[in-house]
């Protein structure tokens, strides 16, 4: 390439000066030299060609790869190289001839190049056009794409530049390396990307559907790396909605392939990737979870993931021990993730998982591991299993999982906290035997502090846990909750922008306001604020569920002895109840009717006066109408209420 160029390019003395400065013993001067070179070549194709001819590229590459070069120098070198690459076709060819790509693919300099493609719109078309050159450029460029493509924006940029059409033919290249890099590229492009995935399913490669090409690549006689990457592509396409979860290429090909990747015969890295990909594939689909749970005894197979480093490796081979240690955390977190995914819907699978050897002990120790990744995965697994009433009653209690869980809640990154607090919500359900010890451990303060978090997920979990805790709780617990949370915070939560938070807060209020003495006590101390909040919600733009919950709170208040009066004396509220009794939504009608029914209940003091007042306000007419309602529940409820007048 050099000879060819020298024949028609005049090498000037100034150009030589730039190159000479790259060899200066003073690093500072070298840096300045590179910067000057950068400024000299911008937009100057002739200068670029001169520098290439003078051998600047190998020197720049050398400086780039030298460990002793400062990061500043290396960055500048990469920029100059990038700039040289922006010149004519010949320049690019010279650069590629210097094996610039493998050099750039190593180490930190890659980062510099990584950003460039997506910042500079002309680099990608250049790289695309180089794809047709040789198998080597195909291999390197697809590798660059897979390395650089880190965000959905990157995916879109590559997609818009025709990455799919340009790379698809490479899947049937005679070179294994090219096929492999092209395949990797597709896995990166398709990940969580509906647009790419939807396009991919319709692509034909040599008259064959791309999905079928991937299926062929998963054949058992193909190299493992290829099987695994092909399975990833199909997994991502499936999760992006481009392939149905009941498609045979998923059920009979991808899933079994990924299960095989978890086998003891595979390398530790492959087992990690296999398990993670499989967990991702079946997360939303219970049928896939059921199939996977029986395929090749996967549940038992995963137990092996916890046996590294094995006692054998420690004795026999130090190198192996080192290798095992390195992968032990990865293996454990991958297994927890896969168990979490497997057990997320089906009760039988959860039972099978908890019955696996030492499973609960493994989760318990996983919760306190030093690696955040393992802790997160362990708590995800615990969360998945905590959806089982049976497990909450048995294994969860037997293994006192609440202890490490509480410890985990003290000091953990947000993502761990979200999972841990969500699990705690389930452990605080009234039938859970762990509820008592958790209460005694002083969890209330912690939950209250969660409700003040910036993260909506943490606020929801905090208030949700408090709600569960307050369900059928004794007066002491309820009092503690109100005290710890503080009315101010309670009412702040009632105006929370997140409707989930609002719902759970109303749920908490409703649970606090149950059984007559509790109702009267709470209402006597906080009646005014509560009525205010209720009014606001009923007037505001809220979902049916929120309004229903609020009306149920009113119904509870109406059940109190003294609390009733707070409603009876509030005409505004009474009008609202009347309004909801005539609402088009049956649920709201039912809740409102329930409220009136409580107010006019015969056996209580002052029922006559209340009945009279409400009759005056026209409630009897409404009740009469509701006895004709088509909904049987509403009809019954209205009839029961009417009987109070007749008695």
């Amino acid at each position, binding site marked *: 390439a050099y000879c060819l160029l020298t024949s028609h390019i005049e090498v000037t003395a100034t150009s030589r000066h730039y190159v000479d400065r790259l060899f200066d013993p003073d690093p500072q001067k070298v840096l300045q030299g590179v910067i000057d070179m950068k400024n000299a070549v911008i937009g100057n194709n002739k200068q670029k060609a001169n520098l290439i001819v003078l051998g600047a590229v190998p020197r720049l590459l050398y400086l780039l790869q030298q460990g002793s070069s400062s990061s500043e120098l290396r960055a500048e070198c990469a920029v100059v190289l990038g700039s040289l690459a922006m010149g004519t076709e010949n320049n690019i060819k010279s650069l590629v001839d210097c094996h610039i790509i493998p050099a750039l693919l190593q180490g930190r300099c890659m980062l510099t190049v990584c950003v460039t493609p997506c910042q500079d719109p002309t680099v990608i078309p250049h790289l695309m056009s180089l794809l047709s050159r040789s198998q080597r450029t195909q291999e390197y460029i697809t590798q660059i794409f897979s390395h650089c493509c880190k965000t959905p924006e990157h995916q879109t940029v590559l997609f818009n530049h025709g990455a799919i059409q340009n790379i698809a033919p490479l899947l049937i290249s005679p070179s294994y390396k090219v096929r492999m890099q092209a395949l990797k590229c597709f896995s990166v492009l398709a990940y969580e990307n509906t647009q790419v995935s939807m396009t991919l399913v319709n692509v034909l490669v040599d008259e064959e559907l791309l999905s079928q090409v991937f299926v062929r690549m998963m054949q058992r006689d193909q190299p493992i790396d290829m099987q695994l990457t092909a399975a990833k592509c199909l997994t991502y396409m499936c999760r992006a909605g481009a392939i149905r979860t009941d498609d045979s290429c998923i059920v009979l090909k991808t899933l079994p392939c990924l299960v095989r990747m978890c086998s003891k015969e595979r390398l530790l890295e492959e087992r990690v990737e296999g398990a993670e990909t499989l967990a991702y594939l079946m997360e939303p689909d219970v049928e896939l979870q059921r199939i996977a749970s029986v395929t*090749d*005894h996967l549940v038992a197979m995963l137990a092996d993931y916890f046996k590294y480093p094995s006692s054998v490796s420690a004795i026999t081979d130090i190198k192996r021990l080192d290798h095992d240690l390195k992968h032990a955390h990865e293996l454990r977190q991958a297994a927890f993730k896969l168990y979490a995914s497997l057990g997320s819907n089906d009760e039988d699978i959860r039972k099978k998982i908890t019955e696996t050897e030492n499973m609960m002990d493994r989760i318990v120790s996983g919760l306190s591991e030093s690696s955040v990744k393992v802790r997160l995965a362990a708590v995800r697994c615990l969360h998945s299993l905590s959806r089982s009433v049976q497990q909450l009653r048995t294994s969860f209690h037997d293994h006192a999982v609440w202890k490490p869980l509480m410890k985990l809640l003290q000091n953990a990154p947000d993502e761990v906290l979200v999972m841990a607090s969500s699990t705690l919500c389930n452990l605080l359900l009234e039938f859970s035997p762990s509820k008592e010890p958790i209460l005694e451990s002083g969890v209330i303060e912690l939950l209250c502090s969660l409700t003040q978090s910036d993260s909506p997920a943490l606020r929801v979990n905090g208030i949700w846990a408090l709600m569960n805790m307050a369900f059928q709780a004794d007066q002491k617990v309820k009092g503690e909750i109100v005290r710890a949370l503080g009315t101010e915070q309670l009412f702040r939560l009632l105006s929370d922008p997140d409707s989930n938070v609002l719902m759970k807060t109303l749920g908490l209020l409703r649970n606090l306001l149950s059984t007559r003495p509790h109702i009267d006590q709470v209402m006597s101390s906080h009646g005014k604020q509560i009525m205010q909040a209720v009014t606001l919600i009923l007037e505001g733009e809220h979902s049916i569920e929120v309004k229903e919950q609020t009306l149920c709170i009113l119904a509870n208040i109406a059940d109190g002895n003294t609390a009733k009066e707070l409603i009876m004396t509030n005409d505004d509220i009474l009008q609202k109840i009347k309004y909801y009794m005539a609402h088009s939504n049956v649920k709201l009608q039912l809740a409102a009717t329930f409220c009136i029914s409580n107010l006019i209940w015969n056996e209580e003091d002052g029922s006559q006066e209340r009945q009279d007042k409400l009759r005056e306000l026209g409630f009897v007419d409404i009740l009469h109408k509701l006895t004709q309602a088509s909904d049987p529940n509403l009809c019954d409820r209205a009839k029961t209420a009417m009987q109070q007048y007749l008695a």
Partner: protein
Amino acid sequence: MSGQSSGCGFLMSVVVHGDSALNEQENELNQQLRRLYPAVNELETPLPRSWSPKDKFSYIGLSQNNLRVHYKGHGKTPKDAASVRATHPIPAACWDKHSYGYHGDDGHSFCSSGTGQPYGPTFTTGDVIGCCVNLINNTCFYTKNGHSLVCDLTNHLSIFVCPQPNLYPTVGLQTPGEVVDANFGQHPFVFDIEDYMREWRTKIQAQIDRFPIGDREGEWQSMIQKMVASYLVHHSYCATAEAFAKSTDQAVHEELASIKNRQKIQKLVLSGRMGEAIETTQQLYPSLLESNPNLLFMLKVRQFIEMVNGTDSEVRCLGGRSPKSQDSYTGSPRPFSSPRHKASGSQAYLTGFDGGCCNGVMSSKAHPSPHSHKPCPPGPALLAPAAELSSLNGSHSLQQPNASTDVDMEVDHFTNGVTESSSNGFFNGTSKHGAQTEDCDTDMEVESAQSKRQLCGGSQAAIERMIHFGRELQSMSEHLRRECGKNSVNKKMLKDAFSLLAYSDPWTSPVGYQLDSIQREPVCSTLNSAILETHNLPKQPPLAQAVGQAAQCLSIMAHSGSGSCAFAAVDDYLH
């Protein structure tokens, strides 16, 4: 007799209450079964194709070509189950002790005992259950609706099967009205068995490829070189052997003169000049034929055949043609010849391999150094074989050696523990090559010796000589019987040879194959081996022995139920 191994074979899959089985073409089934059981010869060990109407309980009914099973009624108690087994076992024998099962009602697995242990999911109406026995690692697993239930070998749920017992596919039924349809390979299986087999084929091949060869550097290479050299010497490729030995720095363990003598005799045999061959042998190795009357008898029988053919020197003279000018044999023994036949009924056969070798030897010998043969004293004139070969080849395509005859004959020879199935496969792959080369040689002879193909070359005197020789042969045979006892091989040999005279055109007769020049090769090889033995040299080249040994090993593996042989054929490694 123990069965052959099937490598890994899918026994069957059953559909509980599934669609009715259609009658598929028998051929298709045969092909499918061959793919599924690569190393099985059905003639020897038939495969299960349906349920056996004999081996079943009376409550079991069969229909749909014995593929559908239904339970007709109650046993003594409602808990009684009934079963039926397939017509044949999976080749690999102990029905009582070793049985394995998977139960639908509880998903338990049963291994040689009445108590099961939790294994997989339960199954019921509509499910397709498969069973696969892997005779490579001697395990068994089941599949449900195409999903495998394999487990790691270290897992306690692994089902290890005894490699020896005959395993009969069997189903048991308990519920009245229950129906089970079976698929023994008539239809594609729901489980991708082909893919499973691909993985094992790859594993076995990787194992072979990675097999450690020799610890010390250079040892392997020098061994290969010795094998090649000994092969060249064995077949008397003097010049090539010399050049090869020189370039690889080896010593040749036989004197050059001795090699050349053998070469000379081989040439004579291969060109059909048996009389001269016998004479030369007696001259050079005086005691050989004396102490080996059966060998002499064989040579004489061949001589008789060559007389019928008109190629033997004795009848040629009578035909008025000079042997020298008539002789048009290539000047070197057809290189593929001798090794195609084993010396004396042991396992030295080497064919495909030979084909490759022969080409290289031919050209190097014929073109660059024809003079190296000149010293051979009374040797036939050395023509430029390559040139003639091609022109002759182009103008004649009369006599095509019958490849199938060739194979049949080869197979007949393998009585020594080599199964037909493996030897068949072995030869089929290579007979083609032999046949091509054969063309040239045959044509050449046709041109010079028998363009009209008349008995003994058409000369009345020659016919008389042949008849006379036949009588001598008859009396020699009687003499041999008196001296050494009955010999069925000799008897048949003579009978076959004499049968030639029973037809007006012996060449097209059912015994006409004897006239084919390819039949000279076993004779040549036997004689060559006998000469070598008198020199205390191996009667077979180590190379042929190694290949024969490998094939024999595979065959023994197949008979002893070692499954990996199904995915390893010697042929795959001979290119």
